[in-house]
């Protein structure tokens, strides 16, 4: 085996940020070195993800970590679905990092002034290592071909996110952090329980092997395992009955942290649901119907919550919950077109929701508050900011020709084609949710950007370029998704096709036939497994 193959790229999105995290922690006294390392690591891992996205288009890439073949060792698998998630999350993580750098180093102002305006400056020394660990955890969750390694990635991500959420340890953040930490702990305990039971039922935790063995398990046990996993991921993805923690805990964090959480963490939950529903438990009508009901409730109740809010950050948190419903809708349709639409929607939503939270951070910087009652007249005071808000806001509501519209059209078309009563209810619900989203953000727009500016808002405050440019870049990325929507949608369709089929995934992991990896020691391990 030559040293450098295309597979060499696969572990990079996990390794680079993790190594960089160690470096930045060791170099915590040198803030500038930290910044350079963080940006370089994330840029490199994003570049690797983009390369992976093209490489994975011709078939999944598999790396056996430590050169132990798959069922014994842990493997990382980059298929189309993983690669596209990695790419969009990489771009987003990079933009948010740059934004947070801009927030940390304001131009032409002393730090106290900023602190009094924004209320929270990020302690950079802790922020960088934690942020990089978060990036590594997310990448590990996306790439893992092993259920337990996936759990580890999940935990890395959650532990880092808990630290980020409680940065500074102010009263408000400790309150929000407690809720968040307890809920996430509960979800990971459920996940671990599910892993234990799956291992007891099948004797393996390798995803490819599971997809071969699970169909032989008793259907009732299968259903229990599936529901337990969906429960764990549903908490993380914040689908309706399990979503109450999200608007409680996200808005108090610093703007870049909220942006990352909103854009990424819930989507990891959605990705895991997508992976489980396609690879491990395909074709279970009962669960699909449950998911449809859940999707409908998530959409409607989330958006009704958003309408009631008078704080922009909370309003956006509720729209976040609501739009998770669209993705679950796509998953619940359990068809290639539905899954493709869900994948496209996830990609669109990551970029748009993050961009909106970043822009709201700028609004807070400019207007001194995120409460709609205290903002006003920003369209006149900061026209550039108004544009930055308006574009992703319309994109979120799904105004043609933006990417949100395209994703929704995909979902609605497939819902109509499905034709069942529930699917029609969801089609109607989706349209109603889109209209209510438009109502909610137009309300925010009217109150924050129109009307006479309240006297507290200073007329001339230059926005730091370091914050505006990354936010603008992410808004631009959202527009780029619209421009390349054709090829991207095609990619999502191929990803969905491969996921629904599952054979290419299994063949890539076990090239020498099912149940057998490339190593020598396989036979022993299979015998050692606790097979029931």
């Amino acid at each position, binding site marked *: 085996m030559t040293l450098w193959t295309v597979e060499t790229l696969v572990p990079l999105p996990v390794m680079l940020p993790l190594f960089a995290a160690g470096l930045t922690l060791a170099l915590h006294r040198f803030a500038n070195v930290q910044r350079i390392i963080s940006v370089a690591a994330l840029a490199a891992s994003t570049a690797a993800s983009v390369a992976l996205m093209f490489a994975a288009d011709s078939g999944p890439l598999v790396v056996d970590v430590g050169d132990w073949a798959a069922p014994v060792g842990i493997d990382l698998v980059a298929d189309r679905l993983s690669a596209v998630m990695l790419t969009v999350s990489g771009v987003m993580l990079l933009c948010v990092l740059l934004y947070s750098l801009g927030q940390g180093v304001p131009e032409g102002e002393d730090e106290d002034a900023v602190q009094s305006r924004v209320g929270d400056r990020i302690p950079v020394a802790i922020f960088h290592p934690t942020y990089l660990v978060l990036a590594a955890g997310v990448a590990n969750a996306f790439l893992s071909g092993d259920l*337990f390694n996936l759990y*580890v990635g999940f*935990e890395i991500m959650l*532990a880092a996110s*808990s*630290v980020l959420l*409680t940065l500074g*340890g102010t*009263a*408000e953040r*400790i*309150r*929000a*952090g*407690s*809720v968040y*930490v*307890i809920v996430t*702990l*509960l979800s990971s*305990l459920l996940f*671990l*329980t599910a*892993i*234990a*039971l799956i*291992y*007891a039922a099948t004797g393996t*935790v390798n995803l490819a092997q599971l997809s071969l063995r699970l169909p032989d398990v008793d259907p009732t046990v299968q259903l229990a395992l599936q529901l337990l996993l969906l429960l764990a991921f549903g908490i993380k993805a914040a689908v309706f009955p399990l979503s109450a923690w999200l*608007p*409680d805990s996200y*808005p108090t964090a610093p703007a870049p942290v909220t942006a990352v959480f909103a854009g990424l963490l819930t989507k990891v939950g959605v990705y895991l649901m997508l992976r489980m529903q396609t690879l491990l438990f395909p074709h279970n009508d009962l669960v699909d119907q449950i998911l449809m009901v859940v999707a409908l409730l998530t959409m409607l109740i989330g958006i009704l919550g958003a309408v*009631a*809010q*008078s*704080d922009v950050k*909370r309003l956006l948190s509720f729209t976040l919950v609501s739009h998770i419903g669209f993705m679950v809708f796509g998953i619940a349709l359990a068809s290639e077109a539905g899954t493709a639409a869900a994948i496209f929607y996830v990609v669109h939503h990551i970029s748009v929701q993050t961009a909106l939270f970043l822009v709201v951070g700028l609004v807070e910087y400019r207007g001194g508050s995120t409460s709609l*009652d205290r903002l006003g007249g920003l369209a006149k005071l900061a026209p550039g900011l108004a544009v930055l808000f308006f574009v992703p806001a319309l994109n979120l509501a799904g105004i043609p020709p933006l990417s949100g519209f395209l994703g929704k059209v995909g979902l609605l078309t497939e819902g109509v084609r499905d034709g069942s009563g529930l699917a029609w209810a969801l089609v109607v619900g989706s349209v109603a949710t889109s209209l209510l989203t438009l109502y909610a953000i137009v309300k925010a727009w009217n109150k924050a950007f129109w009307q006479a500016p309240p006297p507290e808002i200073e007329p001339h405050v230059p926005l730091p370029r370091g914050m505006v440019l990354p936010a603008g870049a992410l808004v631009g990325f959202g527009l780029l998704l619209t421009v390349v929507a054709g090829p991207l949608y095609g990619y999502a369709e191929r990803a969905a096709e491969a996921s629904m089929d599952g054979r290419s995934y299994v063949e890539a992991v076990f090239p020498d036939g099912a149940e057998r990896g490339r190593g020598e*020691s396989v036979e*022993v*391990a*299979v*015998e*050692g*497994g*606790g*097979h*029931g």
Partner: protein
Amino acid sequence: MTVLENTPSAVLVLAIGVLFATGVYLLLERPLTRVLLGFILIGNGVNLLILVAGGRAGSSPIVGNDPAGEPMSDPLAQAMVLTSIVITLALTAFILAMAYRSWQLHGHDEVADDVEDRRVARQAAVNAPAFEDADATETGASLDEEAAEVHDDVADDDDHADRNDDGIPDRLQGRRRERKEDDR
């Protein structure tokens, strides 16, 4: 393929059940330290569950150690339990730190309610008289007003300039008073 005899021991299963039950009970409490204890208990319950999933104990899992062919214990389950113990330890440390910080700030470590959430609920109570339930005949409070009861320290700590002490913006206060007088 040889299959290990893996009927789980009843003692382990019972222990798992007890750990889960007590853990869930503690998780439902408000103080963080109790939640933490609940988390640790369930965490250990799950660890035992993984161990049970690995089947009965056998000879040590080293290839070639026991050529006689006695079935080996499952090393994977042990590896997974080890990993999960480490993760539980790290998260325990984090929650302890958070509980300590909460105690520093407020003198206790109870998980508080969300202020903004309560504020929205209170506004709803002011704006629309909600339907009366059975309790309301006794306490005179509607469901929404009950929901608006704040259990929170943050609201007391913060000085909200434009709100009076129960956190309602001034312009809404007048309307609320009118309603209260109507009720009387």
